[in-house]
């Protein structure tokens, strides 16, 4: 979406490595969510953040509302991490999605 700019659009990682995905916002957002869309097309909640940092296993996400960005860090990537990752930012009761990052994890 225009208000949510997600990068990179595609990313390839070898197993065991890591990287960061980023979302920049063109307006002040109240909260951000991150989702993974798996190979079956299902959208899985990863994080909801109104501020600060959350960590869950090999994933860590940060939301800086003042500087209008959020990041999702993946470490020790596994084959099952492959999929499309979306951020979605909330303002005025409505979520706007980024266009996604297609992550491919290779052996």
């Amino acid at each position, binding site marked *: 979406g225009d208000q949510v700019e997600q990068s990179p659009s595609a990313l390839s990682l070898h197993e065991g490595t890591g990287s960061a995905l980023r979302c920049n916002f063109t307006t002040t957002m109240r909260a951000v969510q991150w989702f993974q869309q798996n190979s079956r097309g299902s959208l899985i909640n990863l994080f909801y953040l109104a501020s600060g940092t959350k960590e869950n296993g090999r994933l860590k996400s940060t939301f800086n509302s003042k500087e209008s960005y959020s990041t999702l860090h993946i470490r020790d990537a596994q084959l099952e991490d492959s999929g499309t990752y*979306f951020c979605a930012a909330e303002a005025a009761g409505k*979520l706007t*999605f980024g*266009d996604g990052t297609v992550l491919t994890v290779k052996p």
Partner: protein
Amino acid sequence: EAAVTQSPRNKVTVTGGNVTLSCRQTNSHNYMYWYRQDTGHGLRLIHYSYGAGNLQIGDVPDGYKATRTTQEDFFLLLELASPSQTSLYFCASSDAGTSAETLYFGSGTRLTVL
């Protein structure tokens, strides 16, 4: 875990056809949403609702109507389907306005308009 059920899973119709997509959530969430997902566009919000009888316009509402008949049920209506509405449709719900605002998605409905 929140449960959001969409039906049908797949639907094929012809141009000008009348289609209703159904969504039911069983967790008493107040907000419900309809999104469409197309290659190169991510998910785009069509309509949403914050309670029974309420309807809010999303970002891409043209050609779609929606109705929230109960807290649980949210329907998306295509009264004159067009090929441009061929897409993957997702319904979602959330407890917006509370401390547990995570969005929960259904499994999607793939609609093909011939």
